[in-house]
């Protein structure tokens, strides 16, 4: 990534979900893999998260969800990204959710869903691959 610099990533927690252990593990792993990581903090709204992602112009918006709200959160996030003209942003998800929800959010446009027990190296390689596939922007 020498041409374009480190991958920029926003890690976000949305709504009342207070589980932040996983997201902090991921933040450190990504930093140690050479990425620039911004963490939203807990209890953000989709509006706040998308505004931040657009201002920071991150390569990847990653949402960590352990609260079961994925089917309402992602439609909102994609709608807002569209309003900002930021449809090229890569969106990924992590946390805990049932298989049928994984399929549903992938159909909405979530590019990767990396749930509990995913080794950090897998997360790193997945993000690198997605950004490389996207190309220059």
């Amino acid at each position, binding site marked *: 990534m020498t041409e374009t610099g480190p991958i920029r990533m926003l890690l976000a927690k949305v709504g009342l979900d207070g589980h932040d252990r996983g997201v902090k593990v991921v933040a450190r792993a990504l930093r140690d893999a050479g*990425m620039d990581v911004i963490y939203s903090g807990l209890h953000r709204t989709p509006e706040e998260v998308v505004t931040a992602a657009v201002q920071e112009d991150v390569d990847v918006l990653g949402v960590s969800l352990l609260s079961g709200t994925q089917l309402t959160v992602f439609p909102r996030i994609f709608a807002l990204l569209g309003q900002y003209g930021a*449809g090229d942003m890569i969106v990924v998800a992590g946390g805990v959710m049932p298989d049928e929800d994984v399929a549903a959010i992938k159909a909405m446009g979530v590019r990767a869903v990396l749930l509990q027990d995913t080794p950090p190296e897998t997360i790193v390689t997945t993000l690198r691959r997605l950004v490389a596939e996207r190309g220059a922007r």
Partner: protein
Amino acid sequence: MSYIPSDTLAERAARGELQAVGRLISRAEAGVPEVRPTLAAIYRRTGAAHVIGITGVAGSGKSTLVAGLALRLRQAGDKVGIVAIDPSSPYSGGSILGDRIRMSELAADPGIFIRSMATRGALGGMARATLEAVDILDLAGFDAIIIETVGVGQDEVEIARASHTTIVVSAPGLGDGIQAIKAGTLEIADIHVVSKCDRSDADRTLMDLKQMLMLGHAAAASTDWQVPVIGVSAYSGEGIDALVTAITRHRAVALRSAAGQTRRLAIADFRLRKTAENLLAERFAAVAAEGAPPLARRLADRDADPYTLARELVANLLAWESKHE
């Protein structure tokens, strides 16, 4: 998705489209060659914004203060841009950019634009693309632009050459707060803030600082501007109004007075040097990447001395552009 030309993005940014502002800053940060002519054209269109620098050691409360300040400026009708810089890890090159999390109450207001930046090895408290980010925000119509420096070193004096108004933050209870000021940031402050004034030990820090300033001022008294010391609590909001008043007053003085003119020239001079420095650093890397230089061989063989060869190297760096661009 097709690649949108930077000139197109600049027009969109000038109309206030936030996505274009964000993307242009990314391209400036990545040093994409295609964005350079656009940045050059943007510079000519800037100069309207008031640039406020905030420095002080890590943990002194800069980010929290920036949030409080931005909110107040926003209430007064300004659009506020913020560029917040954090260090890159020297081991991985990555970073966790933590300033934004302290500004979360600003999160959904489109009139406030927050951009986090990692230093990526740059020294002096700012990142290489910080000044370009300021230009882009200026183009986009942000009236006040706040730069928050890294706050690790005691040598972050460059901020005074990048901002119209420089605020130095000292906090009670850090022990080394006053120490940092002794080591060189005392002189660069247009405004001193003692943060966390809700704490009982803040009075002591205020007194120490005022005393130190009186000693300094006996030597170098300025007639245009008396550097104020303001106690602020970002938690209770105490002192924020006084700070905004001081910033507004300083801006007026800086715009009108002879000292202000000198300052503007110094800012331009710094920008020029920094840009030249970056240019040379880039060429250096590019020339080095072209393979082991024959110059080094001549040096190793004692064919010539380092001083002569260094001149030759510099000449090569300058010639490099015409060959490659």
